[in-house]
């Protein structure tokens, strides 16, 4: 087996005071095999998917009390790097991100161009360039995301939502990273602008071989770009597989319900909802975290954490119902 571009194993991220420890990322394993592929992480709000993207960027809060597991990039273990090494060698240069909440993600008093070129000028490392080269590279990435070069001299409040989102994307591309994490990149945008951004992402993925980690609550949106999809629930990945496997042949009850809750245009059947609400990450149910909302829950579901069952190549789901001989 050749080395994956990114391989995450047993990642854990807990924060908050010991008494109300928030288990935001719980024993998560993911991988992106090669460049030009997109991995979707799909889940409801509060499932810890934003924490997961921050954990991959090692953007840790002071309150973090546990951060462990393994993150390998092209075989190189990143978890053993010092914070400074990680910041200089990995963050933004090899893995960059488009943060959630594009409306406030840009510094309001700096021109867009200056914010885009900033890592070229102030980040230590091999990509350090002259001012002139930085401007040229900035114009290049602006063109890549479909913005004209004069946008560089504008302030964020002079840009529309779509332009800001493209600007953030340009910013993430400036150091030619191998992987880009997109955290709910379109949730604040109107559908038509959202579709424009999705088309842009597809283009970047195929034309520049960008690997994408696409974090969203919207399965339908994820299907627009993702080759693989991991379904997150309560800080865990409950099912993972190729887009075809997840969308056409979901195995986990949560994935199934998530898919039928998507309102669609083509199908005349009205969507259904999932009863109850997602659990609090600082007070998770025992056993399988989904069991209180699951219609088919078995007695064992509330007692033991379910095993990970392989349902085909690369298709994994963590559920007692899929076990060969469900106990009890």
């Amino acid at each position, binding site marked *: 087996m050749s080395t994956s571009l990114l391989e995450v194993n047993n990642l854990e991220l807990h924060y908050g005071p010991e008494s109300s420890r928030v288990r935001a990322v719980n024993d998560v394993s993911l991988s992106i095999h090669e460049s030009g592929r997109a991995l979707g992480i799909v889940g409801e709000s509060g499932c810890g998917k934003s924490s997961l993207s921050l954990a991959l960027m090692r953007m840790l809060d002071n309150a973090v009390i546990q951060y462990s597991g393994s993150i390998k990039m092209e075989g190189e273990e990143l978890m053993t790097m010092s914070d400074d090494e990680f910041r200089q060698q990995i963050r933004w240069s090899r893995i960059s991100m488009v*943060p959630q909440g594009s409306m406030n993600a840009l510094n309001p008093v700096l021109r867009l161009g200056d914010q885009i070129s900033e890592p070229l000028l102030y980040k230590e490392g091999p990509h350090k360039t002259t001012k002139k080269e930085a401007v040229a590279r900035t114009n290049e990435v602006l063109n890549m995301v479909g913005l004209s070069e004069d946008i560089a001299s504008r302030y964020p409040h002079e840009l529309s939502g779509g332009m800001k989102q493209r600007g953030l994307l340009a910013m993430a591309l400036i150091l030619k990273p191998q992987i880009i994490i997109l955290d709910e990149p379109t949730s604040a945008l109107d559908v038509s602008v959202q579709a424009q951004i999705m088309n842009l992402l597809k283009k970047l993925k195929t034309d520049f071989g960008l690997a994408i980690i696409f974090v969203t609550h919207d399965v339908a949106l994820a299907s627009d770009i993702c080759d693989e999809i991991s379904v997150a629930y309560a800080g865990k990945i409950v099912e993972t597989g190729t887009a075809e496997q997840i969308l056409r042949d979901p195995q986990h009850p949560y994935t199934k319900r998530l898919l039928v809750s998507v309102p669609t245009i083509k199908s005349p059947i009205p969507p259904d909802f999932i009863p109850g609400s997602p659990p609090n990450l600082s007070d998770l149910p025992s056993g399988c975290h989904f069991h209180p909302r699951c219609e088919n829950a078995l007695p064992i579901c509330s007692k033991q954490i379910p095993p990970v069952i392989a349902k085909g190549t690369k298709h994994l789901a963590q559920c007692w119902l899929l076990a060969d001989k469900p106990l009890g």
Partner: protein
Amino acid sequence: MSILQPLLVRTLSLVVVFFVILFLLVITLGATGFSDRTLRSIVNEDLRGIRTGLAQTIRDPDQLESVMRERRQDLESFYDLDKAWYVRLPGSLIRVITLDLGEARNMRAFEGSKKISRIVLERLPNTMILLTTSFLVTTVIGLAVGTYLSTHPGSRLDRIISYFAAISFAIPAWWLGIILILLFAIQFRIFPSGGMYSSPPPVDSLPRFWDLVLHATLPIITLVLVSLGPYIYVVRTMTINIAQEDFVRTARAKGLRERHVLTAHILRVASPPIVTGLILGLTGTLGGSILIETVFDWQGMGRLYFETFAGTPDEGMIVALTFVFTLMYIVARIILEIMYVLLDPRVRY
């Protein structure tokens, strides 16, 4: 789009405020009869001069009196004293603006003149020395400490400073000055207890300057101490608030150095509200200077203001000083507002 428009709007509105204050000042003076008195004393002053001149040519006392009476009428109509105060309003306004307020009752400029404008303008630089120095010192220390604290919220120093800020707000500047005099001038005899120069003042410029520095130290420390606490608090709170914004997270995600994130992102965005903090502190510093100059016997406008109340109050001086203080304040405000507009592109429209 243009940066000129907000600058113009802010400057204009402050100029309007300035004239409204002036207008209210003059109305108060007129309605309470103060301007009558002031003008009358000017007239009397003029008449005295005329009398000594006339007395040389006109020997007959009766004739002298009648000529004097005529002159008085002429002068009174010249100064519009025969009209109601509200008719004279525009004239009074111009008189105040040009500091044409006649002579002081019992005060003199250091060079001997009794003209109010001379007395006041002579003191202006002395006040400016205190104000600008303490303002700069406060700004520099406040920024440095406030920023440092914002990166260590909840630390022991942070808590100490937050109490210091509260105490610094609660301490009257003038009382702190007294304490410092008691301690450093009377008990330990490190600094002089007041005045601007020793008597006699040193003649050479370098010792003279050093003498001035020694005398200025305690007043400046006082002014800095009372305005520093709240300012540090403003800087700290603003910086902490900004540090929680999403764009700071973006800047960190870029893998930039922490120091760069702090200066180029957090402080850059926090600077407009910090300037607002300076604007708020300005009122305190200006008011503080009146009291501090009094306490330290500093020969500035504040001390002068105190003296005009201490003896027989001198209306002309009071009006002149109130006017100059207001003017100073408005000018400083305009400078800070311009800084604000330059720092925050969002107010340009």
